[in-house]
């Protein structure tokens, strides 16, 4: 099976499959494609690997009349394509395939499935969960005499306990320079800050789909954001942006210079291959106003282009990859967290993650996730967040400043796109 970095020629009748992946992930994708090819030798699949900006890459393909038949869809950005009529509403095909519909309904995690339900249409089926949790270095915890953190979402730990742990694990050398950080974040800082807001008991928005307002002006949500910002600026247990310029947060954890790292399963392969790193995983902390430990839904799915000339073949591929067999292949690969209950709880998934003690953090993750807002305007909101979170995360302004600046700007975008 060949992997094409770019280009989308129409010189053969192969089904085109567009996706974004790092080299290890691409390998897992190809395993699913290979498994599909064995079961459907009559359908040829040509893979198209995305460049750094998948949405831009995809838009240009589709606008040029060469939209790939099967497209990877991201929870935050698919709505823009669905709104523009690029993606096919899968409900029609699902209606004609009652057996698969029933199977999917019984085995799916509702919140993940509904992530791709937009304006009454079903524009993709989820295929992997990539929500956030914490990796922790077992050796550093043991050396500092700190009790290991909880191993299940049902057993939360508080912001205070998390902070105490991070403080106990932050070490400085004689010059006062930090030699080991308590906590590092390997995800996008502004999104992580929002996730701390969610863990303080307030969702990003109500409703989640097509909201007209985001909770950047909610005091409790803001409190969670402030706690996240204080980790670096006040408590000095996390590095600032300047401090991660020379060594990425991912490398800090891999090299044993950080005790806890926030990220998703996409970091697993890197940490798994890091020499001498003995790690396990734990849940995110819960704020004083929070009710339970929460991750973010952070899922990707598979969609079919509305303009596809091979809709039936595309349907077979999507069904395979998001159905029990494809999900089992994903589970066994150890490169993603599948989204069907049967695959998450399978022996293959457990075997692929045998070095993880707290496997319940992964298997329970999808069911303990809260979604981020789904709106066609997300690219604009993302860029507004990037701009407005900057001073808060640097400690130049309090998180309460978001209530007047960012909140109004976001509302304006959501009301008049």
């Amino acid at each position, binding site marked *: 099976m060949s992997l094409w970095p770019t280009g989308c020629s129409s010189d053969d009748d192969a089904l085109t499959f567009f996706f974004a992946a790092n080299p290890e992930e691409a390998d897992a994708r190809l395993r699913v494609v290979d498994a599909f090819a064995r079961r459907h030798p009559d359908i040829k699949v040509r893979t198209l690997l995305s460049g750094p*900006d998948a*949405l*831009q890459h995809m*838009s240009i393909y*589709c*606008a040029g009349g060469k939209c790939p038949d099967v497209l990877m869809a991201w929870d935050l950005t698919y709505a*823009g394509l669905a709104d*523009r*009529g*690029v993606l096919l509403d899968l409900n029609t095909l699902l209606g004609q395939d009652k057996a698969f519909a029933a199977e999917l309904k019984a085995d799916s995690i509702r919140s993940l499935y509904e992530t791709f339900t937009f304006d009454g249409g079903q524009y993709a089926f989820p295929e992997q969960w990539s929500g956030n949790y914490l990796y922790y270095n077992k050796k550093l915890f043991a050396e500092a005499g700190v009790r290991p953190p909880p191993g299940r979402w049902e057993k939360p730990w508080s912001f205070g306990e998390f902070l105490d742990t991070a403080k106990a694990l932050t070490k400085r050398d004689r010059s006062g320079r930090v030699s080991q950080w308590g906590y590092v974040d390997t995800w996008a800082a502004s999104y992580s800050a929002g996730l701390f807001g969610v863990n303080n008991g307030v969702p990003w928005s109500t409703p989640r789909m097509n909201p007209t307002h985001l909770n950047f002006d909610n005091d409790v949500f803001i409190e969670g954001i402030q706690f996240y910002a204080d980790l670096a600026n006040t408590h000095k247990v996390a590095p*600032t*942006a*300047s*401090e991660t*310029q*020379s060594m990425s947060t991912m490398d800090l954890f891999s090299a044993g210079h950080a005790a806890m790292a926030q990220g998703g399963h996409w970091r697993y392969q890197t940490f798994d291959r890091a020499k001498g790193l003995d790690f396990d995983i734990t849940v995110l902390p819960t704020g004083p106003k929070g009710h339970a430990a929460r991750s973010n839904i952070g899922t990707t799915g598979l969609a079919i282009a509305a303009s596809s000339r091979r809709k039936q073949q595309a349907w077979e591929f999507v069904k395979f990859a998001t159905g029990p067999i494809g999900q089992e292949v994903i589970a066994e690969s150890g490169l993603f967290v599948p989204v069907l209950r049967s695959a998450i709880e399978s022996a293959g998934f457990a075997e692929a993650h045998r070095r993880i003690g707290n496997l319940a953090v992964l298997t329970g993750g999808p069911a303990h996730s809260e979604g981020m807002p789904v709106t066609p305007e997300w*690219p*604009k909101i993302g*860029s507004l967040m*990037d*701009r*407005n979170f*900057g*001073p808060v995360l*640097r400690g130049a302004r309090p998180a309460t400043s978001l209530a007047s600046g960012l909140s109004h700007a976001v509302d304006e975008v959501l009301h008049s796109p």
Partner: protein
Amino acid sequence: MTTIDGLAAAVTRRRKFSKRRARAGRMFVAPNLAAVAVFMVFPLGFSLYMSFQNWDLFRPAKFVGLANYRSLFTGDPLFSIALRNSVVYTVGTVVPTVLISLAVAGVLNRKIKGINFFRTIVFLPLAVSSVVMAVVWQFVFNTNNGLLNIMLGWIGIGPIPWLVDPKWAMASLCMVSIWRSVPFATVILLAAMQGVPDTLYEAARLDGAGELRQFVSITVPLIRAAVSFVVVISIIHAFQAFDLVYVLTGRNGGPETATYVLGIMLFQHAFAFLEFGYASALAWVMFAILLVLTVVQLRLARRRTAQEERSWA
């Protein structure tokens, strides 16, 4: 009769020949003309047309008249920020570029041993791509372990968050831009300096003028046309800045809005928000600003040259 017939035949032959030459000329120019039409005239016309439309690549374009221009000037607070940043970046790049290039070209114009080696060194950055250059400078600007902060540390200056702090980000960007622009400007100015007759310097020396006086009173006035060209080209380049900003401070022109210049704004609206009509309107506004600046600059240069010619006379 025979002479007249001969003359008429010669005229006809010449006409035929010149027609053939004209046709051949047109044939030679045609491929280039076609390329200009396809790759320049059509995109220009299309973007002008699109600036009056609302178009997101997928849905049919919708005519909105001057709405894109109106919201750019009245409803988009980021336009004024981008314009201000572009002006700061342009001034912060062009003025130092011209001054440094003048000095460097003046030094390289000297007839000393091994000058070709130094000329090669100075021109080397011209051969490096902007993206590669920006990546290298990212390392240089690293707050804790960057070359620049290490060197500043030797003289007792604490680490400066070059690309992380909004107060420093634009200054950092200007530094890289100057580093990139100086070689090109130096090439132009050096070529112009080499065209200044030696006799003028000899006369000045006989009159007791020092090196600096010769440079200010002879070299600079006589290469004014080249300086003018460098200024115009540098302004155009700086105003259209994109690649350097994108690599150094990210696709949003951060931190916050510190390096949010017009080029980044255009790219963001076109390729992140898929607002191609709005981005086209912005492109034409940028074009109009540059056109006005260039015309004013050329007029000023022409007037100055005329004044000088009068004073020489």
